[in-house]
């Protein structure tokens, strides 16, 4: 099972989290989750994900701050990060790109099948 990819999903909504976990697990991914933005780097160090799925509006530390910390971290600066949010204004997307997000997906515009396809193509 060493070729199983691990996705870390930081999302504060329980229902969305449980749907994504179910979908990803059914598609053969290992999934770790967290419901807030606190200590994200420590969590990444512990979980060592292949890809991070990151909500923006989180209790405590927001998604943009987490992304910034990742890009400034020597070990994790190249981690693939998908911003997965319902904030979808141009300025949010531009900010995500400026901070080095690998992808920006607006949740309500995608199905979970499309999310799985995106993750698979990014890890291929």
């Amino acid at each position, binding site marked *: 099972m060493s070729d199983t990819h691990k996705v870390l999903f930081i999302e504060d*909504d329980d*229902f*969305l989290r449980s*749907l*994504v976990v*179910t*979908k990803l697990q*059914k598609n053969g991914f290992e999934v770790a989750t967290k419901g807030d933005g606190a200590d994200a780097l420590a969590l990444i160090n512990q979980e060592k994900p292949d890809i991070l799925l990151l909500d923006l*509006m989180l209790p405590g530390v927001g998604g943009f701050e987490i992304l910034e910390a990742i890009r400034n971290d020597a070990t994790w600066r190249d981690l693939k990060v998908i911003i997965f949010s*319902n*904030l979808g*204004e*141009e300025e949010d997307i531009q900010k995500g790109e400026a901070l080095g997000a690998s992808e920006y997906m607006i*949740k*309500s*515009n995608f*199905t*979970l*099948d*499309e999310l799985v396809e995106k993750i698979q193509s990014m890890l291929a």
Partner: protein
Amino acid sequence: MPTPRTHKELEEALAACQAHHQEKAEFISMMTHQLRTPLSGNKWALNMLLAEDVGPLTSEQRTILTRGLRATEEMILLLQDIIHAHKHDSWGLVYTHTPTSISSVVHAAVCHFEQDARVHDVEIVIEEPEHEADTLIIADEQKIRFVIQNLLENAIKYSKEQGHVQVSIHKENDHIVIHIADDGIGIPADALEHLGAKFFRAHNVLEKEGTGLGLFTAYKIIREHGGTITCESTEGQGTTFSITLPCTQPA
């Protein structure tokens, strides 16, 4: 509020209105974000059930879930319209003019709808003279992109099966002309003169979701760039929107 009289009173009234408007904008932004979260949950859950991720479905269950999913997707689109309309129709628009490549804006907008076009079986092609592709005009790039996206979205939404959308860009003297032509359901003759009016929707599109705010905003943006936007259409055969924008910023 009593009628303000002095200059100072007018300024105070304006400041109060602006503060109120800011509060309203923040409320709408917060509300739309909050609404999209449970709607995303609905969409994903219904999609997963329909994909039989959690067990097989009877055809009756499938029919009901499909309708539920369609309703959820309509709500998401309506919410999107409200967000756009609110953003572009508050207090007059604030423009940030920069040198803008219409070619890049069009390519980005077409790219944005790639998936939508595939789902609706619509082919989008862009035509432009190669030597004009780097022409820059002074415009608000984001707002022009909104206009192009809005027209493309309509062209896809009101397409027929195996539809075609052609976007062409060319320079005419000191103007850029953009045509967005489709072979979709077209606009009834009696509706053409009302295009761009707030909340107006032609009778042949009423069964599709929409608010009638998208074109209103698009017309406003083009007018405020000193440009023109016109529409030619034959019901049942297709529609062409033509946008003309000056290459230099209006004084």
